[in-house]
């Protein structure tokens, strides 16, 4: 028989809510995050930003991937970058000078990441100043494209967020890493610290392959939803249109003939509170000829 000895009642101090009042933001700050790299955060940020702006919202897309700027490429504005996020923080230029206006969609703006290797280029105070200014400039949405990992850049991308779009691939390491991120969202953010309801979290499952889900080779949206316990804001199918979109610098949501675009458009609707059924969960029926001759 094993004897069990329990020492309990060791009370640890719990941080009291230090600030009770809520910092009201006119602009809603949404972080697009994942933990694991290469799952589709930048692709998602670009498309959600475009989609929100197409619906008449004023949107600022901020690339937090300091040292590895990429959102500009996906947005197709890489040659128009003169000033970046760190320049604004350091006062080298005004925010207006650094914001790149999209030429296709009215109301859409990009703030590029700096290519500096200085890890301390972003500061909490500096990021807050930029977000406050975007707020007073009347932006409706600020989308923060987070770098991978759980280091400083990822921390600052989520710190001021009101909402989080957690981008996940139906694959074990992506799901596990996103759960780490959920833990950080629930503790290491301004909303968590102030005890005012925390960050609202949404699951965006991407690179979804309905055929492999059907054959039991890939976890389904319900599997991932169940493990993480999140509401689903979108399921984006694996699509060759995404590579074509990044090749040409046109966010995939702007491709009228793409399932991935429709899936992102639905996600935008759900972000705005629309109730829409999930689409593209089943393999698209192929025509007779395609089945006979297709690969």
């Amino acid at each position, binding site marked *: *028989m094993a004897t069990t000895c329990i020492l309990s009642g060791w009370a640890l101090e*719990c941080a009291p809510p230090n600030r009770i009042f809520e910092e009201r933001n006119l602009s809603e700050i949404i972080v697009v995050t994942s933990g694991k790299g290469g799952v589709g955060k930048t692709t998602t940020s670009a498309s959600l930003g475009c989609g929100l702006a197409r619906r008449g919202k004023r949107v600022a897309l901020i690339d937090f991937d300091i040292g590895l700027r990429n959102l500009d490429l996906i947005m197709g504005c890489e040659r128009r970058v003169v000033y970046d996020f760190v320049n604004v923080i350091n006062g080298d230029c005004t925010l207006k000078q650094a914001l790149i206006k999209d030429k296709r969609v009215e109301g859409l703006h990009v703030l590029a990441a700096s290519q500096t290797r200085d890890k301390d280029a972003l500061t909490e105070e500096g990021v807050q100043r930029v977000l406050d200014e975007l707020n007073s400039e009347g932006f409706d949405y600020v989308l923060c494209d987070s770098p991978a990992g759980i280091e400083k850049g990822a921390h600052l991308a989520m710190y001021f967020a009101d909402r989080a779009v957690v981008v996940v691939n139906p694959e074990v390491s992506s799901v596990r890493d996103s759960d780490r991120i959920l833990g950080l969202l629930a503790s290491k953010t301004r909303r968590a610290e102030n005890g005012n309801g925390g960050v609202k979290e949404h699951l965006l499952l991407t690179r979804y392959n309905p055929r492999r889900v059907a054959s*039991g080779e890939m976890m389904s949206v319900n599997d991932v939803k169940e493990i993480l316990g999140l509401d689903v804001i979108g399921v984006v199918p694996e699509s060759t249109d995404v590579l074509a979109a990044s090749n040409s610098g046109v966010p995939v949501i702007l491709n009228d003939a793409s399932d991935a675009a429709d899936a992102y458009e639905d996600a935008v609707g759900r972000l705005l509170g629309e109730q829409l059924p999930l689409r593209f969960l089943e393999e698209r029926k192929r025509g007779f000829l395609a089945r006979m001759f297709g690969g």
Partner: protein
Amino acid sequence: MGLLALFRSKPSTASIAKERLRIIVAQERSTRGAPDYLPLLRRELLQVIHKYVNVDPEAVQVHLDREEGHEVLELSVALPDKQGG
């Protein structure tokens, strides 16, 4: 699940993935937000206990529970049946 999966004897890799994730995520959530010193505390406790009793590493469990306003750290040590000395 597809028709094919019905005829398979082995569970699909997707269901294996789901089961593994369910376990590891639950485990990681239970230690989430716990102070970083917990693993070290657990190791040192184990060393101290070892001076007196020969216990398994798994026999020392450290749990942090949150109740309103305060946190409770629970240490549980499963001692072996017979104690030498």
